[in-house]
C-alpha cells in the first residue's frame, strides 16, 4: 500500500510521518512515534483511554485517521506538563487520590483539560457529563470528579 507523507504537530513539535492512509492517529502515536502515554483499548471510541486533544478539542484517537490530522495540532499526555511542572489537573489527580491503575488517566485528564478550557468554572455535574465518555474501572469516578472540580477552582482563583 502506498504511503502518505504527513506533517503533524504533536506537543508543539513538527513530525514528518510516512504512513498508510488507513492508519489511525492512535496507531501512529504509539507505534511510529513511541508516544505510549496515549492508551489503547476498545478501538471503537467507547472507552476513551485513547483521548488526545486535536486543535484543543478532545477526540478519540482510535477512530481518527492520522491523515485527518495533517497540519493540525495534537496534544498528548506527554505534552501537558511544561518544563517539568505538572499541569494543575495532573497535580490535582495526584492530590485527590484519583489515580489507581492509571490506564484511563491520560485520556481522563485530557478530556477534562479540553472541557475546562471551555467552562473554567464547571460544576461537578457538568464535569461528570464531560467525562461520561471516559471509562474508569478502578475509582468509581468520585475522586476524579473531585480532582477536576478542584483544579478548576484553583485555576480560577489564580486568574
Amino acid at each position, binding site marked *: 500500500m502506498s504511503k502518505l507523507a504527513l506533517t503533524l504537530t504533536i506537543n508543539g513539535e513538527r513530525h514528518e510521518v510516512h504512513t498508510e492512509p488507513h492508519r489511525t492517529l492512535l496507531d501512529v502515536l504509539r507505534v511510529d512515534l513511541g508516544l*505510549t502515554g496515549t492508551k489503547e483499548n476498545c478501538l471503537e471510541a467507547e472507552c476513551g483511554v485513547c483521548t488526545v486533544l486535536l486543535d484543543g478539542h478532545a477526540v478519540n484517537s482510535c477512530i481518527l485517521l492520522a491523515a485527518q490530522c495533517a497540519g493540525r495540532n495534537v496534544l498528548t499526555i506527554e505534552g501537558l506538563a511544561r518544563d517539568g511542572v505538572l499541569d494543575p489537573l495532573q497535580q490535582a489527580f495526584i492530590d485527590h487520590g484519583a489515580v*489507581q491503575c492509571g490506564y484511563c488517566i491520560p485520556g481522563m485528564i485530557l478530556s477534562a483539560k479540553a472541557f475546562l478550557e471551555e467552562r473554567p468554572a464547571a460544576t461537578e455535574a457538568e464535569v461528570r457529563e464531560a467525562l461520561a465518555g471516559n471509562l474508569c*474501572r478502578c475509582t468509581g469516578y468520585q475522586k476524579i470528579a473531585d480532582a477536576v472540580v478542584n483544579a478548576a477552582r484553583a485555576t480560577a482563583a489564580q486568574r
Partner: protein
Amino acid sequence: MAARTMRVVGKSLPRIDAPGKVTGTAVYAADFALPGMLVGKVFRSTEPHARIVRLDVTRARSLPGVRAVVTAADVPDVRYGGGLKDETVFAKGKVRYIGQPVAAVAATTPEAAQAALAAIEVVYEPLAAVLDLEAALAPGAPLVHEEWASYTAIPILHRDGNVCNRARIVVGDVDRGWEEADRIFEHRFRTGMVHQGYTEPRAAVAQWDSSGTVTVWSNTQLPFEVQNTLAEIFQMPPSKIRVVVPGIGGGFGGKLRVGVEHFAVLLARKTGRAVKVVTTSQEELTAAYPRQGAVVELKTGVTNDGRIVAKEGRIWFDTGAFAGSGPGVASVATLVLAGPYRIPNLRLEGFAVYTNKTNCGSYRAPSGPQSNFAVESQMDIIADALGIDPLEFRLKNIVRDGDEGPTGQVLGAVGLEECLRNAAAAIGWNERRPETWRGKGLACGWWTTTGGSSGVYVKINPDGTVALNTGAAEIGTGALTGAAQVLAEELTVDLADVSVVSADTFSTPFDFGAQGSRTAFAVGNACRAAVADLKQRIFALAAAQLSVEVEACVLAEKHVVADGKRVSLAELARMSQMTGGGLIAQGTFIAPPTAYDSKRVEGHVYPAFHSPSFHAHAVDLSVDPGTGDVTIHRYVVAQDVGFAMNPTYIEGQIEGGVAQGLGQALSEEIVYEGGRVLNANLTDYKMPTTLDMPRVETILVEHPSLAGPYGAKGVGEPPNIEPPAAVANAVAAATGLRVTVLPITAERIALGLLGDVRADGG
C-alpha cells in the same frame, strides 16, 4: 499500636507511582515494545461444541508478512490448570466454546496477521452442546469433557461428569433445625456472567534468547504462577522462563492466570522474533476469565422471634468449558452462603459446572456477590415476613467476637455491628420508605484476607534512601505504596525516600501474588520482618562506629541514635558497601493458618476465612415506576478494615468496588444466546460511567486483626460483594417488587411492576 504516634502509616499520602501515571511515562504491558516485534493474533472457534473435521493453515502460512501459524500440533500434548488440569493451549480434536483458541498467527503487521486469520480453513461437525446450568445438570446431558475422569486433579475435589467440583459444609443437623423452626423460607436466585472490565486489555510480549531462556513481559497479577504454568505447558524448567510485569491497567482477578502469554511464547519460539499479543474487546467478552453466572437455592428456618435455626443452600456456578477458578469459587461460596451469622445447623453446597461457554475465572471477591445477593435478599424477605426490621433481624443473628464461623474457626476483631449500625444510621434507616417509589436497603457480609507467602528484599541505598524489591505486582490498588509506607515508618525515612522494584520472577523474591486482598497485608508484614533483620545489621554497624552498646541504638529521623551520638543511615550504608556488601535484608511472611474443623467440610479448597473483614452497605434510591430506572440518592459503605494504612486509597478501593458492584447489580451481563455472546463490545456491555455512579460515602471501622500489619485486614475485594443485595433490597422497599435475578435492569423492574416477575417469582 494506639500509644505510638504514626508518621507515615495511617496517613493519606499520595501514591508513589502517581507521577508516572499522570504524565504518561508509566509503561504498561500493552505499551511494551521491542525492535522488530511481530504481531500475534489468535484464531478462535465459532462453534460452541463441535468436532474439528479439518484444519488447514497452509494458505495462511503462505501469505506475505506471515511468519508463523501454529496449532495444537505445535505444542506438547499437555493439559494444564490449577487444581484441575483440563485446559490445552489450542483445541485439539474438538472445540468446547465459541472463542476457544484453535490456532495463532504471527505477522509483521496487524493487517497481515488479520489476513492470516481469515485464510485459516476449518471445518466443524457440530455436537450437542450444553448451554446453561440446567442443560449441563440434566440426566444424560452431553459431557463437555467425555474424558473428565482421566484428568489430573487435586484429590480433594469431588467431580462427576459435568460437575468439576462439589464443595460442602455440614454443621449440626438441618433436619432437626427444620423442626425447631416456626417458619421456613425457600427462594431461588439467578445471576448473570460479568466481566472484570479492566481498561487495559490482556497483553504479553515474549522473546527468546540464545541460551534458551524466554522472557515474557505481561500484565499478569501472578507472575510466579504464570511462570509455572508456562513451564508446565512448554515442558521447561521454570528457571528458563522469566516473567516481568511492567505495569497493569487493572486486573480485578481477570489477569491471574495465563491469558495470552503462552501464545506469545510459542509464536516467538517459532519465529525467532519478539512477538506481542494483545486481546481485543471482543476477545475479552467472549474468551477471557469472567465471573461465573450462578443459580442459588436457599432454605432457611427461623423462629418467630427472628432467630435463624437452620439453613440449607446450594449454589451452582456456570464455570464454562474449563474449570478455571470454578472449583475454588464453589468452595468459597459456601462460606459466603453461611453469611456472617450464627446458625447452628447448616448444609451448604457449591457446584462448579462445565458448560459450552467461555472459561470463567476469578473476579474481585470470587463467588461473593452471587452468594451474598441471595443470602442478603432472603434476609430482607424473611425480616419483612416476620414483621421484624431488617436491621434488627441482622443484629439478632450476626457473629460477634468469640463466635465460631461456619467451619469452626474462632472469630475475632468482628466489627460487624458497628458497620451495620453506622451504615444504617448514615442513610436515615428509621425512614425505610420515605416517599412513594423510594426505598432503602441494607446488606452485610464477611470476607477473607488470603494467605500465601511473600518475600521482600529491602536495601538502604548509599544516599540513605530505601529500595523495596518485591515479587508482588502493583495492580492499581496502592498496595505497594502501603508497603512503602510501612518501610518509611519503620526506618524513619520519608515515603518519597522509598523506591520499588517489583514482579520479576528472575530478580524479585517469591510472592503469592496480587490476589485475594492480600498484597498490602502480606507484603507489609514481610517489610516489617525485613526491617527487623535490617535493624540488627544497622545497629551492629552503628554501635561499632559510635562506640555504644547495640541495645542503646534506636532509629530516629534517618539516623541511628544512641547515648546522645548519631550516625546517618546513608553513612552506615556507605560504610557497609565498603566493607560488607551493603545494607540489605530479606523479609518473609506467611499468614498463620486459621484453625477449622475439618469434619465439617468436603471437597473444599478454602475452608476458612483468614483475618476476616466485615462490612455493611446501605443505599437510598428511587425507582421510576414507568421506566424502571433506578436513581441512587445515597450509597454508604461501612467497612471494618482493621487499620487504615492509607485512608485515601482505601476509600478509592471502596468507591471502585461499589462501582463494579453497581454495574453487576443494575446493568452488566455477558448475554449468551445459543452459545454465542450477543454483546461482545463496550457499547452493549454496559459498565457504569461518571453519570451512573453516585457519590459513595465511606465509613472506616477499625477493629485491628492480630495478623495484619498494624492490625490491617484485606480491603480490596469486600466492597464488590454487597452492592447487588443492597440494591435489590432497596428496590423491594421502594416498589414492593422483589427481583431475584441479576442484573436488576430497568427493563426487569418495569416488566416486574407490570406483573411479569412479581415478588418471589424471579
